[in-house]
């Protein structure tokens, strides 16, 4: 096997890793900011894909579909935060039940509105085909995914580190009560955190649509896919999400070459190993 057999899987691995990164980053934002594990994150991933499908088919434009998918999930994130407000601060199981309850509701809605067969949206003409990089042929769409995901990731980082909003996020993540003691209305920030966190997942789902298609029952699978990333990167550790996701993506892709039937299990096996060796995650740094 020469190098070129690895290149394409590597690229696809990085691409799928980055898609999951977006969803996982959204999760980590909600976990670190509000202590909420959103078990419906997979459902919003599917919803983003679903809306993208409908709008994409109607307008003939994938990009418009993606924008629609992101926007719809963005606003639903606000609704989700509102629905969680009565129980934030009470026992953690309640927020988890509510997010799962919402996932249940969405599951049924997916089946009713979209039907149970797998549907997909065609890759737009300008993104089809291969790009020649050096001596390798790489599918254009995967490069698009990598580019789009990194762009959004960059935007997220800029907001987080360089804007007032991000400043409030960082403060809330480290000390919620003190932020309140400073007179800041934290509820607005919470809502923004949720909207962004959910929208990231919706966007990821839309991005993923031309590759994997839309499956009405895919919510749990989409959630399960980010669990290893979250554990290996550190639950709630936003900085660790990207390296963890890329790591998992590449690992899975390489594993697929050697274990075509079992490569799905590799991330979870690695996750178990990480729990054994370094339970707080491989990519965490001790702050303070």
């Amino acid at each position, binding site marked *: 096997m020469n190098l070129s057999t690895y290149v394409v899987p590597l690229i696809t691995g990085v691409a799928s890793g980055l898609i999951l990164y977006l969803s996982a980053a959204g999760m980590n934002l909600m976990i670190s900011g509000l202590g909420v594990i959103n078990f419906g994150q997979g459902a919003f991933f599917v919803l983003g894909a679903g809306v993208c499908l409908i709008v994409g088919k109607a307008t003939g434009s994938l990009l418009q579909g993606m924008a629609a998918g992101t926007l719809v999930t963005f606003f639903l994130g606000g609704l989700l935060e509102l629905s969680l407000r009565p129980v934030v601060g009470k026992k953690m199981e309640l927020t988890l039940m509510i997010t799962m309850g919402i996932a249940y509701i969405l599951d049924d809605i997916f089946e009713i509105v979209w039907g149970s067969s797998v549907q997909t949206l065609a890759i737009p003409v300008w993104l089809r085909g291969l790009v020649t990089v050096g001596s390798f042929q790489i599918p254009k769409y995967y490069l698009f995914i990598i580019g789009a995901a990194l762009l959004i990731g960059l935007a997220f980082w800029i907001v987080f580190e360089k804007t007032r909003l991000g*400043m409030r996020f*960082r403060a809330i993540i*480290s000390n919620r009560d003190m932020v309140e003691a*400073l007179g800041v209305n934290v509820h607005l920030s919470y809502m923004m955190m949720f909207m962004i966190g959910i929208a990231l997942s919706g966007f990821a789902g839309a991005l993923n649509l031309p590759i994997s298609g839309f499956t009405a029952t895919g919510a749990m699978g989409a959630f399960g896919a980010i669990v290893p990333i979250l554990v290996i990167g550190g639950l709630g550790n936003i900085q660790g999400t990207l390296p963890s996701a890329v790591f998992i993506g590449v690992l899975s892709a390489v594993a697929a070459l050697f274990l075509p039937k079992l490569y799905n299990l590799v991330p979870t096996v690695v996750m178990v190993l990480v729990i054994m060796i370094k339970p707080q995650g491989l990519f965490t740094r001790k702050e303070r």
Partner: protein
Amino acid sequence: MILKLHDVNAYYGSSHILFDMDLEVEEGDSVCILGRNGVGKSTTLKSIMGLLNPKNHASVTGSIMFQGQELVKKPTYKISRAGVGYVPQGRQIFPTLSTKENLLLAAKAGPDGSRFWDLDKIYELFPSLKNRESVKGARLSGGEQQMLAIARGLMQNPKLLLLDEITEGLAPIVVDELVEVVERLRSYNVSILVAEQNVRFAMSVSRHCYIIEKGSVVYYGETAKIPPEIIEQYLGA
């Protein structure tokens, strides 16, 4: 009178900490709350700030009037907006925010709309903070963090500043700096309520003094005129 506590009882779960507490602060005055470890000094300030609430399994009864508003049962952020600034025990600087960001986060107009305390004014009063403007909170020294915590409290343009055990863990030379800082605050007519274990510090920055024992006030008077026997009795080592 800018602050008046009347018959205040505070509970952490079923632990009764403050018993029928009465306390007053005149506008522009600086008042200290003295007492041994665990008598309820911090709890008093936290009660004023609304930090004893159902979420923390704590509760407060009685009346805390601040400029005509009842603070008991008000959420913390509303108390802050009403004009009470809190410099918490342990400083609680945001570690992932820079000095400047810590200040900007707190920046707001006072209840009367005044924006007297802004970044420039703060840097005037705390020149060392300007030098450390872009340093992340986690990397500041204890003394710097304390200055930042006080500065952050001021950025809210409060009418009343609560200082909770600010000398804790600081070297004597830093404590002396703090005395200067608080003195200058008084010259700006900021009302100050200080909870302190460090008797020397508290007495050098306050004009009036409450001494607490077992959650109740046992002595009140002008700081300069406290009889040494009283100090010995309630604060003696």
